């Protein structure tokens, strides 16, 4: 999408994302200082996002898109760290794959590395507070975080390119039908894979989860 966001929009999303990046960098520093044991898990959460955003998966709409993988790190470490980890993924794809883009980096960081993780984290906390089972909470968090990312992308494009006839809302529907609709099966896939990884963590890495006070008391 390089060059497809007008300069003013590109700059504005960059400015909006900047404080989240600073906060994220601080959060990464705090996690590695306070929980040195969990450093490798933090890197693994980044690795999960790295894998999932490389996988372009076909969807029932007849187009392809990729999951984000940012929900896992958000529920383990809090949403702030994902701004940094997601930005690394986006930078890699912008520089080496001409995917995403440098001029759209700010907007993409906001949708994938900020909005998605915060929604995932919020959904996870809400589902757990309401007494939802861990697997259900993890699934909903990852799936809805993924959908939120692409809904935000649709809104970002609609703000830049409102429909000449139906205006902003018409454009949201238009871009939403391209992105969000395609994304529904992918969101389910991301939810299932995140549950799978959390299962493995509970099985093999209970100590790291205890270190982060994640899902205390849940054992396999």
């Amino acid at each position, binding site marked *: 999408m390089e060059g497809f966001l007008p300069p003013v929009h590109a700059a504005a999303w960059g400015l909006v994302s900047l404080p989240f990046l600073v906060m994220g960098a601080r959060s990464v520093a705090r996690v590695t200082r306070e929980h040195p044991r969990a450093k490798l898990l933090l*890197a693994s959460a980044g690795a999960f996002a790295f894998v999932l955003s490389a996988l372009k998966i076909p969807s029932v709409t007849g187009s*392809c898109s990729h999951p984000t993988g940012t929900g896992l790190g958000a529920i383990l470490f809090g949403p702030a760290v994902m701004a940094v980890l997601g930005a690394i993924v986006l930078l890699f794809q912008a520089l080496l794959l001409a995917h995403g*883009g440098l001029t759209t980096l700010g907007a993409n960081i906001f949708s994938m590395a900020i909005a998605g993780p915060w929604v995932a984290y919020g959904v996870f906390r809400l589902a757990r507070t309401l007494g939802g089972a861990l697997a259900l909470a993890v699934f909903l968090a990852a799936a809805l975080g993924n959908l939120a990312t692409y809904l935000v992308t649709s809104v970002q494009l609609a703000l830049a390119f409102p429909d000449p006839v139906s205006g902003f809302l018409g454009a949201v529907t238009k871009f939403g039908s*391209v992105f969000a609709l395609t994304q529904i099966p992918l969101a389910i896939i991301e939810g299932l894979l995140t549950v799978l990884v959390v299962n493995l963590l509970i099985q093999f890495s209970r100590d790291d989860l205890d270190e982060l006070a994640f899902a205390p008391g849940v054992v396999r």
Partner: protein
Amino acid sequence: MKRTNLLLLAAVVVIAVLPLILPLPGGLAEPFAGADAQAQAAITAANPDYQPWFRPLWEPPSGEIESLLFALQAALGAGLLGYYLGLRRGESQRRKSDADPARLDAQAVDARD
């Protein structure tokens, strides 16, 4: 737990493969193109005057190189994730066998045989 995980994986495979088997929605210029490309087409269709004002600094020179880099990205991520899970699995198994002297003895017998 292993059964649950296998079922999860099976469900992922089914959801990913199903779109390839189901009939395609009509009116597609190019089946299974990227959603990004479709959004760009929608932008230029509604705003014919819009010119992208920036080009990627570098583009993979061919589809082959592009798939190489995507595969590399997935491999790096999966490699690190697999390393982490393998490391922790080994640690937890060692601890289990340390805590279980009978099993340790059995291992010693195995080793002698």
